[in-house]
C-alpha cells in the first residue's frame, strides 16, 4: 500500500473511530466484534509505525481538518513526542485487547460491546491528542477522552462505580473547564496563537508573572496528570474493570495528561522561558510532594489496584517534575518514563487482574503464597516492580537515571533527595507483594492483623493441591509481552532514547 503520510496520519485517528462503528454493528457476535477490534489495532500499529519511519526520514506532515473559529483550527502534525505517545498507546491497545478478551470473558462482564466501543473511541481521542498540532485541538480531544472513558469507569453500574465515576468526571471536567480552558483562552489572548512551536509561542518580553500564573493554571488544569491535590479521580477510577485500569488509567488517560504537560512546557512555554518563571519552583515542589506523598499513601493501601493507582500518581509526579526542570535531561527522562512506566504499570495491572479472575483476590494481605499457583504472573509482577522502582535489569533504570541527572544539573538537591526517597518507598510498597507471594512463610507479616494472616495461611494450606492455575491464555500472553517489553527497554533503549532526544532537536 502506498498511502501518503498525510493520509496515514488522518487514518490513525479515523481507524479507531471506524472501529467504533464496526464494533457497534458486530456487537451481537462476540468473536467477530473482538476480531474487528484486533484488526483495528493491527492497522493502527501499521500506520503509526509508518509515521515513525516517515519522521525518521525527516518528513514533516501537517493536516488541517477544520477551522472552528478564525485562527482556531483542528489540525494535526507529527513530532517525536507525539509519535512516541502514539506508538505506545497503539501497541498497548493491541496487548490490552488481547488481555481483555481473556479477562472479560472469564469474568463474565456485562455490556461488553459498550466496553469495546468506548475503548476504541478513547483510543481515537488519544491518537488525536498525540498528533494535535495546537493546544486547541489537544483540548478538544482531551475532553472527548474524558467523556468517552466515563462509561468505562462506571462499567459495573453499581453504586460504587457510580460514585467513582462521579469523582472521575467531576475532577477531570472541573479542572479542565476552570483552569485548563482559562489558561488556553488567556494564552490565545496573550500570544495570539495556540500552535505548538519548539521554543514556545510567547514573545520574549511577556510578563513573567502572567506567564507564571498561566503555568500554574496549566498544571492544575491538566487534571489527567494527577498532580496532588487533583489526583483523587485516579484511585476512584479503579472501580473500572482491570483492562480499563490497565490501558486507560495506567497508560492512555494519565499519559495523555503528562503528555499534555510536556507539550505545554516544551512547545507553549519553551524551556528557556520555563526556567525563569517565578512559579516553576513552586510547581516543582508540588510535583515533588506529589511523588512522595502518593508513595506514602500507596504503602497504606491493602487493595492491590488502589496501591497501584497511588503508585501511578507518584510516577506521574516524576514526569511532571522532569518536564518542569526545563533541561534536556529532564525532558528526555520524562519522555522515556512515559513509555517505560507504561510498560511497567500495565504489567502490574494485568497481573492484578489475572489474580482477580483466577483466584478472586483483590487484597494484598490475601496474596501470600500465590506465587505457587501463579508463578508466571508473579514473576512478571516482580520484573515490572523492578522497572517501576528503576533498577536493572528493567527499563525504569534509564528514565530515572535521566530524571536524576536533571535534578543534579539544575542543582535541585531537595528534589534529588525526594526522588531517592521515593525509590526506597517504591521498593517498600511493591517488592513485598511478589516476595510474599513466593515466600509466604519466610517473614511474618507484621502489618497485618492475625486474622488476615490466618486466613491467608489457611488458603495456602488448601490451595497447593490445585497446583498451577494461571490466568486465561490470552491474558497470560499479554502479560508475557509487556513483561518482555520491560526487559527489552533495559537492554535495548537506543530507539526510545533517540526519539526522546529528538523531541528537543526536531526541526520544523
Amino acid at each position, binding site marked *: 500500500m502506498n498511502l501518503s503520510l498525510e493520509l496515514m496520519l488522518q487514518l490513525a485517528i479515523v481507524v479507531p473511530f471506524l472501529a467504533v462503528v464496526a464494533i457497534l454493528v458486530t456487537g451481537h457476535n462476540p468473536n467477530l466484534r473482538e476480531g474487528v477490534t484486533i484488526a483495528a489495532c493491527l492497522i493502527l500499529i501499521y500506520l503509526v509505525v509508518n509515521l515513525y519511519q516517515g519522521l525518521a526520514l525527516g518528513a514533516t506532515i501537517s493536516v488541517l481538518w*477544520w477551522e*472552528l*473559529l*478564525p485562527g*482556531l483550527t483542528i489540525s494535526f502534525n507529527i513530532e517525536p513526542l507525539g509519535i512516541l505517545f502514539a506508538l505506545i498507546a497503539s501497541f498497548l491497545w493491541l496487548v490490552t485487547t488481547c488481555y481483555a478478551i481473556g479477562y472479560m470473558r472469564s469474568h463474565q462482564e456485562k455490556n461488553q460491546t459498550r466496553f469495546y466501543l468506548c475503548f476504541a473511541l478513547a483510543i481515537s481521542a488519544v491518537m488525536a491528542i498525540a498528533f494535535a498540532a495546537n493546544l486547541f485541538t489537544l*483540548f*478538544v480531544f482531551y*475532553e*472527548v477522552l474524558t*467523556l468517552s472513558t466515563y462509561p468505562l469507569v*462506571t462499567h459495573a*453500574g453499581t453504586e460504587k*462505580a*457510580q460514585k467513582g465515576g*462521579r469523582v472521575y*468526571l*467531576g475532577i477531570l*471536567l*472541573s479542572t479542565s*473547564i*476552570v483552569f485548563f*480552558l*482559562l489558561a488556553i*483562552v*488567556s494564552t*490565545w*489572548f496573550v500570544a495570539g496563537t495556540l500552535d505548538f512551536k519548539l521554543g514556545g509561542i510567547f514573545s520574549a518580553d511577556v510578563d513573567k508573572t502572567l506567564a507564571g500564573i498561566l503555568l500554574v493554571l496549566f498544571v492544575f488544569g491538566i487534571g489527567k496528570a494527577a498532580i496532588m491535590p487533583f489526583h483523587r479521580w485516579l484511585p476512584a477510577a479503579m472501580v473500572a474493570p482491570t483492562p480499563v485500569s490497565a490501558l486507560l488509567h495506567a497508560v492512555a488517560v494519565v499519559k495523555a495528561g503528562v503528555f499534555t504537560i510536556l507539550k505545554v512546557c516544551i512547545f507553549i512555554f519553551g524551556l528557556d522561558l520555563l526556567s525563569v518563571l517565578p512559579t516553576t519552583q513552586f510547581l516543582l515542589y508540588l510535583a515533588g510532594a506529589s511523588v512522595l506523598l502518593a508513595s506514602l499513601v500507596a504503602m497504606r493501601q491493602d487493595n492491590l489496584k488502589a496501591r497501584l493507582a497511588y503508585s501511578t500518581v507518584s510516577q506521574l509526579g516524576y514526569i511532571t517534575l522532569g518536564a518542569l526542570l526545563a533541561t534536556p535531561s529532564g525532558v528526555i527522562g520524562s519522555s522515556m518514563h512515559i513509555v517505560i512506566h507504561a510498560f511497567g504499570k500495565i504489567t502490574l495491572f494485568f497481573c492484578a487482574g489475572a489474580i482477580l479472575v483466577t483466584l478472586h483476590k483483590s487484597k494484598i494481605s490475601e496474596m501470600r503464597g500465590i506465587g505457587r499457583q501463579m508463578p508466571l504472573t508473579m514473576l512478571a509482577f516482580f520484573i515490572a516492580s523492578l522497572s517501576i522502582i528503576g533498577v536493572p535489569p528493567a527499563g525504569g533504570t534509564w528514565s530515572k537515571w535521566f530524571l536524576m541527572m536533571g535534578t543534579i544539573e539544575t542543582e535541585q538537591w531537595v528534589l534529588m533527595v525526594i526522588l531517592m526517597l521515593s525509590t526506597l518507598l517504591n521498593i517498600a510498597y511493591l517488592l513485598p507483594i511478589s516476595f510474599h507471594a513466593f515466600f509466604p512463610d519466610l517473614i511474618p507479616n507484621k502489618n497485618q492483623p492475625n486474622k488476615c494472616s490466618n486466613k491467608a495461611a489457611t488458603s495456602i494450606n488448601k490451595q497447593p493441591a490445585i497446583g498451577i492455575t494461571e490466568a486465561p491464555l490470552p491474558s497470560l500472553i499479554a502479560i508475557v509481552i509487556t513483561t518482555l517489553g520491560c526487559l527489552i527497554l533495559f537492554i535495548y533503549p537506543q530507539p526510545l532514547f533517540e526519539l526522546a532526544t529528538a523531541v528537543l532537536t526536531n526541526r520544523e
Partner: protein
Amino acid sequence: MIAHLPALQVHLPVLQVIIPLMAAPICLILKRAHPVWLFALITSGLAFVISVLLLQQVMTSGVISYELGGWQAPWGIEYRIDKLNAFVLLIITSISTIVLFAAQTSIEKEIPKSKHTFFYILYLLSLTGMLGIVATGDAFNVFVFLEISSLSAYALIAMGKDRRALWAAYQYLIMGTIGATFILIGIGLMYQMTGTLNMEDLSQRLPEVAQTRTVFTAFAFVIVGVCLKLALFPLHLWLPNAYAYAPSIVTAFFAATATKVAIYLLIRFTFTIFGLSFSFTTIPLQTLFMALGLAGIFIASTSAIYQKNIKLLFAYSSIAQIGYMIVGFSISSVTGLTATLLHMFNHALMKSAIFLALGAVMYRLGNVQLSSFHGLGRQMPFTMAAIVIGGLSLIGVPLTVGFVSKWYLLLALLEQGWWPVAVLILLGSVLAVIYVWRLVEVAYFKEPLSDQVPVKEAPMFFIIPIWTLIIANIYFGIDTRLSVQVAQAAAMSLFGVTP
C-alpha cells in the same frame, strides 16, 4: 405566481409579521385540529423562509427600511431590519417551526381535544407578537406586539394540564403586566421629551435632552420593564413555574425564544435608542448588570441542582444562561456583545432540544419528576441521549455550540482584563456539570422503579425534531461560520464599527 416574487421581496419585513397574524384567525375556519396543525406548521415554515431571505438581504445590502402603508418614517410606522433583528428573527422562526413539528403529538396528551385549535391560534399569535417586537422600528409598536405575545403567552401557559399552571400563568400575568406597563411608561416619557416614537428618530433626538431627569426616569422604567420580561435575576420569579407547568411544546418554544426577544429589546433600547455613551457612561449599567448577571448564574444554577422536577431544573438553568448573556452584554465591547448574540442563538438550540426531549418524556410517562427518569437511559435511548448531548452543550464542552459562546465570552472578559469574572463564569459551568449529571446518573444507573410501567421510545414526531436540534447543536459547534459571522457583524454595526 413566480413572476410576482421579486415584487413581494420588498414587502418581506411586513410579511414576516403579517403572515402568522393572518394565519391565526384562519385557523378558526379550519377548526379541526389536524389541518390546523399542518396549517400552523406551514405558516411558521413560511416565516422561517422569509427570515432567511431577510438575513441574506441584510448581510449583502445593509439595513432594510419598510414604511407601513406607505406613510413616511417618523409619522408612519417603520419596520427596520438590520443584522441584529434579522438574526433574532431567524432564531425565533427556526425554533418555532421545528418545535411545531412535534406539537400535534405532544398536545394530544397534554391538552383537551376541544382546545387544540385555540392552542395553535395562540401559538401563532404569540409568534406574531415576538416577530413584531423584533421587526418593528417603532417604540410604541414594540409595546403593542409585546402585549400580543404576552397575552397569548399567559393563555398558552394556563393550558398546562397541571392545575399549578393556572397559578403560574397568573404570576406571569401580574409580573408581565407590570413589566409591559413600565415599558409603556418609559416610552411615554420619551415621547413627551422628543415628540417621536420612531427608534431612529429617538436615537437622534434623545442626546439633546439626555441630561434631564425625565429621560433618566424613562430609561429606568424601560430597563426595569425589559429586565422583568427577560427574567434577569432578581426579577426572575415568574419564570420557573411558568416554564415548568406550561404544556411541553410551549415551554420548548418560549425557553428558546421569549427571553431572547426581551434581550433583543434590551440591546435595542440601550444601544440604538439611548445610545452607548448614555447607557454605559451616564448610567452605571455595567457594574449593575455584571453583578446581577453573575448573581443570576450562581443562584439559579445552585437552585437548579436541588430541583426534583426536571422541567423546573432546566428552567432555573435558563435563568443562569440568561446571566451569561447579561454578563456579555455588560462588558459593552464588540466581543462581549458578539458573545451575547451567539449565546442567544446557541442557547435557543440547546434549550429547545432539551425541553422538547422532556416533552417526549412527558408524553410517555406523564410527568418529568426525577424519580421517573430511573432507567430511562435504556427505555428511551434516543431521547435520553439527546438530553445528555444538550446538557453537554449547556456545560460548554468543545464541539458543541455551548463552547463557542463561552469561548467568546471568556475572550471578551480577558480583553477587559477581568480575570476574576472569567473564573466565575467557568465555575458556573461546573455547576452545570453537577445539575446535568444528576439527571444522567439517575437515567443510566438507577434501575426502573418497581411500580413504573416500562415505556417505549418516543414517537418519530418527537425524535425527528429533537435530533434535528441536537445535530444543529453539534453542527453549529463545529461550523461556526454562520452564527459567528452574523453575530459579529451585528455587534459591530451596533458599535458603529465598520469591519
